[in-house]
């Protein structure tokens, strides 16, 4: 039986064992559900006995099924590879790998290509028979364990059996599993980025990467190609990221904060009911739309404006990207700040008004300080979005890695370079592609530091104000 039908069988078995367990619990208690003193009073509700029986029947079987499915292909491949004739083994590890790739693809397709190399045909044949055996053993084992578990679970049901506690323990275990999936995935991503970066740093020194001021990642892929030798100084990229983020935040933070203050403190309920959702629509616009808005509308406008007052503006400028990104971040800033400002208790406002403070004095001196931890949080969220934003920058700020503080020139950012390094056909062992991982790692470390600082600030103010 294949894995999918086997899972269906387990599902049916689960339902069956639930009702079986429930029924048996009612039978052993002889229907006594009320009297606590009676010896046959059930410890838990009948449905818990059902769930308990279900867990005994399905959980061990499911674990065995998953483990077997994960491990058996590896073992089979190993076995088949070992059985390959000596001549292939003598030809080196690459040859073995190549042969195994073909064998596995034939085996997975389920039919053996008669035109293929007879050695490969034989190996594929061998592979298929092993796989079939493994499948049969798996089916038998899983069903046996499921039925055995069901019997055990059925047998254990008695009025004294603490089904509720057992079920809750299993539920707790599932939650731990869910939490660890997220953690393990994060860890896995970090490690893979880290190892690829280490490979990159074996080619390009760390100091050159971190402090070099020239970025030109084009390298010759084959020896006979002409091309740049590649230089990997990341400073222009981080400078560009910083420039664009600063422009974006310089727009989003004041505008967003003031919009939030207007909405929460001054606006009539009717205005607020319309303005707040409208502002939040901005957050729903895909960033690529912002991108072409920046490239096609804002950038030419800035260029014309610059020319009118005698400034030379690149057609793709940091200013255009930063402006549009800033507008994109306004709803972030305003929506989150609005929430925290609304969370400031009315009693503080009353206290301030009662002292003879005006509305704006109250906002400046009481409400903003009280809401500051939340506002800092909103700021940092906007900042990390600005640093990580790619699409707007790709379209509006260009790809040239200029090291400049002039917002009218074209710059590029870390994320944009990662995109350009990894799009198209690439081989994954040249410094060019590996540089993407190094950039990603550096970006990750930077945002991590930013988050840690943010958490510290927020915690400090929390202690002071709550």
């Amino acid at each position: 039986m294949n894995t999918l039908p086997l899972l269906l069988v387990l599902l049916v078995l689960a339902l069956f064992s639930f009702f079986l367990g429930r029924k048996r619990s009612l039978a052993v208690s002889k229907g006594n559900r009320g009297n606590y003193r009676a010896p046959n009073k059930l410890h838990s509700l009948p449905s818990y006995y059902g769930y308990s029986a279900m867990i005994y029947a399905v959980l061990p079987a499911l674990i065995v099924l998953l483990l077997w499915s994960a491990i058996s292909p590896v073992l089979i491949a190993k076995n088949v590879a070992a059985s390959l004739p000596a001549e292939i083994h003598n030809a080196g590890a690459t040859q073995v790998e190549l042969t195994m790739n073909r064998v596995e693809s034939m085996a997975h397709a389920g039919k053996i290509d008669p035109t293929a190399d007879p050695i490969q045909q034989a190996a594929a044949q061998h592979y298929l028979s092993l796989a079939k055996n493994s499948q049969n053993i798996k089916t038998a084992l899983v069903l046996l364990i499921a039925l055995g578990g069901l019997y055990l679970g059925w047998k254990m049901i008695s009025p004294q059996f603490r089904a509720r506690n057992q079920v809750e323990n299993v539920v707790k275990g599932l939650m731990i599993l869910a939490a660890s999936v997220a953690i393990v995935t994060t860890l896995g991503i970090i490690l893979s980025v880290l190892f690829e970066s280490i490979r990159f740093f074996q080619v390009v020194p760390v100091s050159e990467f971190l402090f070099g001021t020239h970025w030109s990642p084009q390298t010759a892929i084959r020896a006979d190609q002409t091309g740049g030798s590649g230089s990997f100084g990341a400073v222009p990229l981080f400078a560009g990221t910083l420039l664009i983020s600063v422009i974006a935040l310089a727009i989003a933070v004041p505008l967003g904060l003031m919009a939030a203050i207007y909405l929460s403190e001054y606006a009539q309920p009717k205005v607020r009911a319309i303005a707040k959702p409208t502002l939040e629509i901005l957050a729903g616009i895909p960033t690529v739309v912002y991108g072409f808005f920046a490239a096609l509308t804002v950038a030419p406008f800035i260029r014309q404006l610059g020319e009118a007052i005698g400034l030379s503006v690149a057609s793709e400028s940091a200013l255009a990207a930063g402006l549009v990104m800033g507008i994109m971040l306004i709803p972030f800033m305003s929506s989150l700040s609005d929430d925290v400002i609304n969370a400031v208790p009315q009693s503080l406002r009353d206290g301030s008004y009662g002292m003879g403070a005006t509305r704006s004095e109250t906002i400046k001196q009481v409400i903003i300080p009280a809401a500051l931890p939340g506002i800092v949080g909103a700021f940092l969220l906007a900042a990390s979005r600005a640093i990580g934003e790619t699409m707007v920058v790709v379209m509006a700020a260009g790809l040239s890695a200029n090291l400049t503080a002039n917002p009218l020139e074209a710059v590029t950012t870390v994320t944009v370079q990662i995109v350009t390094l990894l799009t198209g056909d690439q081989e994954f062992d040249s410094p060019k592609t590996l540089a993407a991982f190094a950039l990603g790692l550096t970006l990750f470390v930077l945002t991590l530091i930013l988050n840690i600082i943010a958490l510290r600030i927020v915690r400090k103010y929390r202690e002071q104000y709550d």
Partner: protein
Amino acid sequence: MNTVTLANDSMTFPSSGTTTTSSVNKTDVDIHSVVEELKRAKQAVGKPFLDNPKFKTRDVNVYYNQTKQAIFNASLDIGRNEVIAMIGPSGCGKSTYLRCLNRMNDTIPGTKVTGDLLLDGEDIYAKDQDPVLLRARVGMVFQKPNPFPKSIYDNVAYGPRLHGLAVNRSELDDIVEQSLTKAGLFNEVKDRLNSPGTGLSGGQQQRLCIARAIAVSPEVILMDEPTSALDPIATATIEELIDELRSSFTICIVTHSMQQAARISQRTAYFHLGYVVEVNDTNTVFTNPGHRLTENYITGRFG
């Protein structure tokens, strides 16, 4: 017990034979007839008016959301340097009335106040009256202690800074110290003026709020159930404080505790369903109430 009133009641409703023993009259349960009766009585029982009052209020009506009326024709005077207690069951309008006196109701959208409210003869709802300046003259202490998320010093200095009462730091220091001393808090906090006001105990926080209110030298202090969130010992401290503050300020206090009203006030106003039912010397209100509803309330028959 005021037997005269009871005899009158039982004469009005001869059908209920038990009125002489069960003192809650049938009419008190029927809200409509009580409202009719209150509407007919143009003026509160007792002595609502004074010579040369601090606050003179006549025919005050308050509406929430334009339509729902919370106060009906409230007319009473508040004397200089007296503590006047406003008592009455929940929802009777006593807090609403209090919040009219410094126009705090302005901060609630849809509130309308009509009638005359005169502070030293000056109409506080006049067009050219600035509610912000009014609130500096008529300070307020709230039910729940609400210190600002600032240091103790900055809490007290908040008002003087807003209104420019101190020209330099040392004057501000003096104001803060004096206000905290008057509020009976200075000795407890003098070593930690820069720690947050929110870190104090509930009773200390409320005294901090009182210090904050008196730092701008108001003429009147309004207190809306200032001790209802405090334990008995903190309450006693605040009550002593209110008695001391009487020499420099006029104090209006809304309270749910009749014992508190009897302990600290010179005059008492009884509110019922938005009407001022009775205003008189506290002693008279509690020993010889002039209105059946007042008596029922203070003797704990309802409320």
